[in-house]
């Protein structure tokens, strides 16, 4: 799980047009480890699309290196504009799925899936066998003879995924693969990606502008802004990072203190602590009334992960002991600034300070 499969080092991409330069990637270092699903999020224009296209050199980086599965693709690409045979061979080991599916409308579903195999020079019978197997894997065995135009968006993307897997890649790149799909279909396509990741040990690098996608399938995530990666790490690491924007987006907790003399505490669950009924223990042990103001919890691998905002009666000074208990349970505890409700302004999200209590 720890060997890096995709590594980009100080990747830069500058687009030059007649009178100006646009820096799409401004020194991106990214490491995707074997067997993980890695999500890159960011708004449009943040450079994430350029980044993923640089990984298989569809876009030639201005400087920096890209290594996939131990091979330096930027070195294979050489100086020329065209892709030399060595780079093409390396690309065949990297599957890619696209937002608009990019299926050939003149070919049947089966022939679309066979296309990468044709390029690899696999004999006809073997191609047909493999295509049937892949279509079965994505649940479209009955559609082999139809044309893409007769399929729904979700089905098209499943064909796209089957096609991307035909060359038995170690790595799958997903360029906004679910952005053109409705939420229901998005969920099933993501589930498929997750299953493939588990079953085949496939490493997936996906870019998306939807936080829900990261939430649903990613082990790790990176946030891009202005051509740079501003945050990255596993979901647990991000959660453990105070002030992490990604963690805030992934696990938003709302809720205001219900009155003065209340202490608002944000709890972050990750790791072992998440399996224990901490809140009810807190209530019983210290005989305090805990109200839950907001919570965002997800279950990853049978383990709960996420954040919860709770309110304890009394000021911070009165709650030092219960807060200490929570910390002892291995939770990350952040106390929202006290006394905001006193001021009488409808304060937005209170600024959080990390508790120094023990």
């Amino acid at each position: 799980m720890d060997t890096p499969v995709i590594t980009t080092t100080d990747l830069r991409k500058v687009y030059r047009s007649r009178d100006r330069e646009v820096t799409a990637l401004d020194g991106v270092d990214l490491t995707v480890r074997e067997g993980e699903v890695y999500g890159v999020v960011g708004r449009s224009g943040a450079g994430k699309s350029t980044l993923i296209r640089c990984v298989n050199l569809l876009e030639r980086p201005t400087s920096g290196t890209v290594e996939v599965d131990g091979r330096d693709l930027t070195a294979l690409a050489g100086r020329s504009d065209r892709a030399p045979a060595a780079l093409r061979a390396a690309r065949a080991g990297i599957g890619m799925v696209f937002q608009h599916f990019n299926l050939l409308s003149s070919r049947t579903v089966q022939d679309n899936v066979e296309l990468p195999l044709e390029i690899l020079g696999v004999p006809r019978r073997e191609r047909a066998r493999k295509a049937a197997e892949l279509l079965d894997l994505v649940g479209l065995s009955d559609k082999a003879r139809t044309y893409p135009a007769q399929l729904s968006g979700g089905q098209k993307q499943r064909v796209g995924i089957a096609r991307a897997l035909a060359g038995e890649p170690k790595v799958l790149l997903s360029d906004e693969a679910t952005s053109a799909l409705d939420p229901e279909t998005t969920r099933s396509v993501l589930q498929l990606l997750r299953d493939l990741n588990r079953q085949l040990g496939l490493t997936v690098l996906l870019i998306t502008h939807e936080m829900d996608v990261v939430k649903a399938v990613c082990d790790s995530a990176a946030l891009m802004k202005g051509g740079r990666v501003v945050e990255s790490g596993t979901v647990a690491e991000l959660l453990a990072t105070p002030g992490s924007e990604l963690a805030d987006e992934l696990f938003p907790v709302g809720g205001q203190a219900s009155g003065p003399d209340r202490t608002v505490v944000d709890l972050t669950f990750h790791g072992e602590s998440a399996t224990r009924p901490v809140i009810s223990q807190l209530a019983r042990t210290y005989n305090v009334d805990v109200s839950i103001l907001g919570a965002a919890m997800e279950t990853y691998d049978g383990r709960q992960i996420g954040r919860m905002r709770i309110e304890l009666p009394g000021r911070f000074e009165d709650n030092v002991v219960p807060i200490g208990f929570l910390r002892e349970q291995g939770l990350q505890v952040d106390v929202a600034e006290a006394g905001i409700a006193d001021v009488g302004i409808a304060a937005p999200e209170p600024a959080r300070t990390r508790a120094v209590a023990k």
Partner: protein
Amino acid sequence: MHPLLTQACTDTLKMVGWSTAVTVAAGLPLGVLLVLTDRGGLLRNLAVNRALGFVVNLGRSLPFVILMIALLSFTRAVVGTTIGWQAAVVPLSVGAIPFFARLVETSLREVDGGLVEAVQSMGGSTWTVVRKVLLPESLPSLIAGATTTVVALIGYSAMAGVVGGGGLGDLALRYGYQRFETGFMWVIVAVLAVLVTLVQLAGDLAARTAARRGGRGPLPRLRLLRPAPPAAPTSP
């Protein structure tokens, strides 16, 4: 049928048939090259692109009659004679190749650039892209272009009389118009109209069949050019 008419029909068919074959054989690769060498193409080479474009424009701007006479010595070198339908095939082809090449270029540009990228991401070479994406995906449009070219060739072939090429157009001109046999002329015109209609119908049918195979409408898709990167505005 009138023996003259039969002869003229055969001549027209021979001229048009041969020159269509030559035009497609030469115009198709030329059109593909025009697209590949252009800015954003897979074989980007602006010098070659400009040169090809210039030759194509030159070929298209010359009036056919002038082309036919200007090419006389070339014709002799190629087919060994400057008279007869064989001699007419040469200027007809030379005239139609640039025309068809432009139509091919337009058709190929309508193929979605995403498909080209998909094949590149699978490790496909430029040749693979041409063979597996550009040509099959634009087939209906290419057939429509070829049909237009054949109809234009039938029109041009009327001038083949200048080199003794014969054919329906020549017959209408000499027997019908110049000898004031108006009736005869209209018969020939009618035959020409039927011929053109048949070609057009056959072409439409073939294009529609090719399009229907993919279950898509006749409407073209977008760009062959690589899509502009999202972050970079294209030149002003």
